[in-house]
């Protein structure tokens, strides 16, 4: 019997700049514009077995990803070379 897999996803990021010419923007142009720093992260955990899903979701270290995102934000702010291009 088919069991629909259950899943949980965590999205990390911060609301950012919405560019005015969004309709003409491409992913590549966005990366050039935003620089070599992480701006968002998504972790998706799925399983057909609820007990397995629960074990992984409970043990998932959300603060580790938050710390990674915060560090990237600090790097981005401190990067004078990047801001020189803006």
């Amino acid at each position, binding site marked *: 019997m088919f069991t629909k897999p259950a899943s949980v996803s965590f999205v990390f990021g911060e609301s950012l700049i919405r560019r005015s010419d969004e309709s003409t923007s491409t992913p590549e142009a*966005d990366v050039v514009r*935003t620089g070599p720093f992480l701006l968002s992260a998504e972790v998706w955990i799925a399983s057909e077995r609820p007990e397995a899903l629960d074990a992984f979701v409970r043990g998932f270290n959300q603060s580790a990803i*938050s710390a990674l995102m915060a560090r990237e934000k600090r790097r981005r702010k401190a990067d004078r070379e990047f801001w020189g291009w803006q």
Partner: protein
Amino acid sequence: MKPGWPRRTIAFAVVLVTSAVASIAAAIEPPPTYCQLNRLKCHKLVGPTRMHFVGLAREALRAVPKVPGYRCHEDIVIDKTAYGHTARRSAPESISAFLSCSHRTTDRHALRPDVEISVVLSMRPAHVAEGGARAKRTARSCSPNRRVSPSCSGRA
């Protein structure tokens, strides 16, 4: 009927068919890629720059717990092209890491692992990466500081 009329007609028909074929070919031809239009902003993602992003993916994967009884297989996927003003400071659009975890008791030949985990790190903000209102809502309701809500389940 004037002599030579059929020849003119044939020539006209040939011109018409040629232009129609040319316009169809132009319509079928894919538009130029970003890298074709912006060669200076596209770079091969190699060396230390690549290793930096592999390191970020590994760091993110460390947030996933090691659950007793489960064995996980790791796979990191990074684009071969990076975008930026210089090669040293270029970045891929996103980095994906996958974990397939199977329980010790699961049949080795089972088609699917017991648990699948994907981690996607992006150089683009979440609402751009995921698109519009849905991503905004998801980011709010599934923020790490809140308990996982039913709306966080499932994936588009």
